[in-house]
């Protein structure tokens, strides 16, 4: 899995490319938690180029979400392909993740004045 990180003033965007499975999950979690430890806990995960995800990948995303929330951060997802969206819905994960159709929509969450930490 390739991870491209874009740092913004108020948040970071991680664009994932490839498969999110048991083989790639651990490195993704480690990577994100390193950002969280540095105080970068407002995160957009752009899944546009994730061409495969299974229960291992889903479980890792849940685990990451919990860690980010524990750090008082916020994790949102964007650009889910229709098959990824489908598995989020049948597993009910769409109920606990904030999911946006586009990265621009996801960015709005962090650009709103109320989302800024004073």
């Amino acid at each position: 899995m390739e991870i491209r990180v874009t740092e913004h003033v108020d948040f970071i965007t991680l664009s994932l490319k490839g498969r999110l499975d048991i083989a790639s999950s651990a490195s993704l979690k480690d990577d994100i938690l390193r950002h969280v430890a540095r105080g970068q806990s407002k995160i957009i995960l752009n899944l546009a180029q994730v061409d495969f995800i299974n229960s291992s990948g889903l479980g890792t995303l849940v685990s990451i979400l919990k860690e980010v929330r524990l750090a008082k951060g916020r994790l949102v997802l964007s650009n889910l392909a229709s098959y990824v969206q489908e598995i989020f819905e049948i597993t009910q994960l769409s109920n606990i993740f904030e999911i946006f159709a586009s990265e621009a929509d996801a960015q709005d969450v962090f650009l709103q004045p109320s989302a800024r930490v004073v």
Partner: protein
Amino acid sequence: MTEKRRFQVPSATNQFVKLYPIIAEIVEELELEGNEKFRFAVCVSEAFTNAFYHGNQSDPAKVVELAFTWDQETITVEIADQGRGKVNDINLDTDLSSISPQETSGRGVAIITSFADKVEVNEKDGGGLKVTMIWHRQAKPGPKTSVLTR
């Protein structure tokens, strides 16, 4: 005409990725596309992951066997390990709606039973479990079935 393909993948950690070219080859032969292709790939991946890590315990001396059989009406996938698992270790009745979204594991089998038309788990002679997943290529009405056979 019935087509068959068989593969064996050793359960050494660095061999896991061999699953994906196998899936790619089969979905191309089956001409699966879009969400149908993804659902098929996820089911094969879930069963393979269970066989590789839970059944064979990542033992490089053991292999996961994959058998794909299809004709114009049915696609059958059998994935078998060489572990010590028992049929009762796998609960095919777990519904995805009963698993809390907060859980970080335990969805694999429920995803298989959601996406496949029929799922069976059998204990092999000599040890190991075999998961059989069946899809009907022409949609037919009727309830899904899950069967455990000792």
